[in-house]
């Protein structure tokens, strides 16, 4: 366990060095957040029926998305991707560790630090100036926190699968651009999922991405009651299990067919 904890810590420290990137991200996120909130307000003003999400809820939902953008964003490990290109990935395989757990530890660290660096100031800013609301009860806050842990692991598990896919594609430009964009959409980051037509909802329910953003956000706003946290967590962890198994078996296959480039 110590090996994984150490690599997690090392990544953590390295990530802390990127404070300027976090500050830049903060500005971008705030800008897009304002834009989205304005669009939402315009739509709500001209709504003919009562939307399934109240405006304050939708605004808080949107800001949560902006705060937690880096947690939800799926991407293969940039370090491993660089190693694939340069061929240093040979060293990764030459270490006495379970490579999957190793990569998962790193994916977790890569998500926690940038998220915390951005989310805390963003949340303060959005709560004070831009209409983000506190959760209605302590129960809602607790439920959200639990679901957030699930979202973190889900995001990391999908991202490791993307990392493993690099064993086949090496550069992986296609997958690594397509998947995050689709996943952001399907987790409610562009438009809150409850605002989609009724017939879309079962589709969202069938996919794993809802657990990344939509469900935790709705626990926070109180749109889902705190008791719903159990089914949310169950959903998340079933998907995490699926992605871990998929990632592990893909990694096993990938290593068998591995061609280490050059040298």
């Amino acid at each position: 366990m110590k090996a994984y904890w150490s690599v997690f810590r090392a990544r953590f420290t390295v990530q802390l060095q990127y404070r300027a990137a976090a500050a830049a991200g903060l500005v971008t996120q705030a800008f897009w957040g304002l834009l989205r909130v304005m669009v939402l307000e315009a739509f709500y003003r001209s709504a003919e029926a009562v939307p399934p999400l109240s405006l304050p809820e939708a605004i808080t939902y949107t800001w949560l998305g902006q705060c937690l953008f880096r947690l939800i964003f799926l991407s293969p490990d940039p370090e491993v991707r660089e190693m694939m290109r340069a061929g240093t990935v040979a060293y990764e395989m030459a270490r006495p560790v379970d490579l999957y757990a190793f990569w998962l530890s790193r994916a977790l660290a890569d998500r926690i630090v940038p998220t915390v660096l951005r989310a805390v100031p963003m949340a303060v800013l959005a709560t004070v100036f831009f209409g983000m609301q506190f959760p209605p009860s302590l129960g809602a806050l607790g439920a959200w926190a639990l679901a957030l842990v699930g979202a973190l692991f889900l995001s990391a598990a999908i991202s490791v699968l993307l990392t493993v896919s690099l064993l086949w594609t090496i550069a992986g430009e296609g997958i690594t651009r397509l998947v995050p964009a689709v996943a952001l959409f399907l987790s409610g980051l562009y438009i809150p999922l409850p605002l989609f037509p009724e017939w879309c909802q079962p589709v969202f329910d069938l996919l794993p991405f809802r657990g990344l953003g939509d469900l935790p956000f709705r626990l926070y706003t109180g749109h889902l009651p705190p008791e719903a946290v159990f089914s949310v967590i169950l959903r998340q962890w079933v998907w995490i299990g699926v992605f871990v198994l998929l990632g592990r078996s893909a990694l096993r296959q990938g290593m068998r067919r591995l061609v280490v480039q050059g040298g």
Partner: protein
Amino acid sequence: MSQIVVEGLTKTYQIAEREPGPWGAVRGLFRRRYRRVVAVRDVSFSVESGELIGYVGPNGAGKSTTIKILAGILVPDSGRCRVLGRVPWRERVAHTARIGVVFGQRTQLWWDLPVIESFELLRDIYRVPETVYRKHRDELVDRLELSPLLDTPVRQLSLGQRMRCDLAAALLHGPAVLFLDEPTIGLDAASKLAVRDFLWEINRERNVTILLTTHDMDDIEALCSRVIVIADGEVFYDGSLEGLRARVTNERRLIVDLEDPGLPLRVEGAVEIQREGHRRVLSFDPTKTPTPLLIADVTAKYPVRDLFVENPPIEEIVAQLYRDRER
């Protein structure tokens, strides 16, 4: 028992090919053509504990592939292989804990971290107990003169400094076997010497078995008691350096510095192959013309400032070996 046993190792890569030009790229979308490249073919050898072996061959001969199979990174198509009694790719985790690997063109240190933090990370990854780690670390830092580098981030190190750190990194967990893929590539003369001296010492003193690939024949001459030559994926020489020389050629060279640069040098049983100022290089076969006789002959006939006997450089021997093989 042998530490490393390799029998009939074969590995083929499949490489996707596309026809040249934009039309070829389009056709490649629908029909992929694959070319099979045999990286190693039926390679066999065994290594005893404490040997220091040079693994030599031209680019693309299959040297790195062999090392990567032995290190548990690649899975061969067929053949058997045991390192310290384990099959590398089947028991990868247990296997890699007992070996050290250095790829000269790459670093295993963390780019953004100071050297010492990389070492600590490796200590945890290899599960080295703290006391053992301290002992190894202090010894390596001392031997490789790393103390001024320890707090420097790896990206700021020169290539020579980085290689010294990489060697230390590969030995922190006290491996019994060390695989080195071109450890001296790109290094300046002083760094090369430092690396060689260090490898020699740990081989002698710690009895670490070393298998190294290199293009630098000075590495081989300075270090290796045994050479394995590979080309096109096949082993075609395995034995001592002297044996390698004898197999290709018995040639020996007599280098003579004459008093008078204008004089032609003619002696029985030797051919002049180079003339430069005072210096003449004679080539001869010691089995036909014994060296003492030749020297006596030269010194009797000509006024000589200095003279010495040399083996042809190992580069030439290996180049000759490749030429012979192609014929």
